[in-house]
């Protein structure tokens, strides 16, 4: 299993591929902070009067499927920890040069019982 989908399998070298939706809950496998502004390009321009706002990145293990790299959205007060439950969400990732806010997939900490 691979994300995003591609035309051949990196494990068996085969090309008989089926697309399927991934689950939306998992556990935090690892994470980090991005505390300096990435170079642009490739980073899309973010337009903010306060300048660059640090963000979170991590890998989320989707049980029985794959470990997905994703932006993480969490309040600054929330402490991230490996193995904590996570849930798929959508979040504004950046504001492009025309001032349009671009939404993408992200994960957020979830309550323990989900």
């Amino acid at each position: 299993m691979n994300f995003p989908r591609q035309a051949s399998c990196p494990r068996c070298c085969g090309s008989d591929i089926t697309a399927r939706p991934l689950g939306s809950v998992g556990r935090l496998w690892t994470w980090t902070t991005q505390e300096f502004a990435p170079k642009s390009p490739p980073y899309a321009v973010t337009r903010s009067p306060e300048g660059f706002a640090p963000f979170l990145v991590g890998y989320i293990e989707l049980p029985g499927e794959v470990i997905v790299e994703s932006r993480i959205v969490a309040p600054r007060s929330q402490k991230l920890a490996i193995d904590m439950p996570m849930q798929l969400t959508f979040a504004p990732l950046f504001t492009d040069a025309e001032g349009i806010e671009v939404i993408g997939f992200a994960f957020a900490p979830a309550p323990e019982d989900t």
Partner: protein
Amino acid sequence: MSEVSIIGIGLHPFGRTPQRSGMEQGVVAAQAALADAGISWKDVQYAFGGSSAAGNADTMVNRLGLTGLPFINVANGCATGGSALLGAYMAIRSGQCDVAIAVGFDKHEAGAFAVNPSDWGLGNWYGESGLALTTQFFAMKLKRYMHEYGITNDALVRVAMKAFANGAMNPNAWRRKAMTYEEIAESPMLNDPLRKYMFCSPAEGGVALLLASPAAVRRSGGRKPIALRAAAIRTRNFGSFEVFSPSLALQRTQSPSVMASRAAYEMAGIGPEDIDVAQLQDTESGAEIMHMAENGFCRDGEQESMLRDGATLITGRLPVNTDGGCLANGEPIGASGLRQVYELCLQLRGDAGARQVPNDPRIGYSHVYGAPGVSAVTILSS
């Protein structure tokens, strides 16, 4: 006598040299290697060279001399130097030539590398959404490793302290000032848990190595030859955790460094316990720690006590990155792998000056790792 020996080494100082292009730094290194070996460019029969951001290596013949030799340009990310060395090694082992040169140089602008996602088979979305940073990968691999094996921030600081202390004894290093524990531990956080002085920076430099067959070694009147006993490169297997991966397999497997390391030990017919001095890819502090285990020098988690006990200092039982590594020399992508081998040759010749490993080291080990998951290992002996 070994089948392939290093008979000449040359290096252009690392860091920032505004008055010289990256390629000119490569030429300086090549001419220094020729002088070291006591041979001329006309004696070189095969060349392998490369840079990531400083031009086509084969253009150097305009400066070195138009002798008609075959010159293969190499572009293999952080393994460019290692790949050039492997090319030269194989050219001699296969009997194609008696004397070959491996040269690497580079010149990068300041700040983290700017990545074009399509160069790595990724969609533009990956870079636009702020994921195309090698620094994030190193931080996330390290955070998982620290969680699994009990490595602490203390170990990360100690690696950086050692690097700058060693760099202070290396006249060719970029950062030649030792730093205190507090200066490193309190420097700005860049990618948690990694702080500013735990990361190497893109920089400039050039290195050249001359390799020779036994027949050519006998003809040359140069320095004592260093035997190149193994050179191996591996790319990633399914299930390893590598830079620029939008997803990972649930099934985990060994890294390309483990695979390249095992292949090199097998070629040389020795094991990690036989190594006297090692240069390991230290893109950041944690990389050196993880690479200690991946190259067989300890079990996962043992690094914490080894660093606390000074085992990897120049005076320790396994000196690591004696020239200051990438942390003190910076990272000119095309040159770094060859810098490691240059340093090993100095150490094995006993020519490393203030940073000489004591007790006559006889066997050296070098390891580079780079995007998108490629490792190169060499083993040398005096």
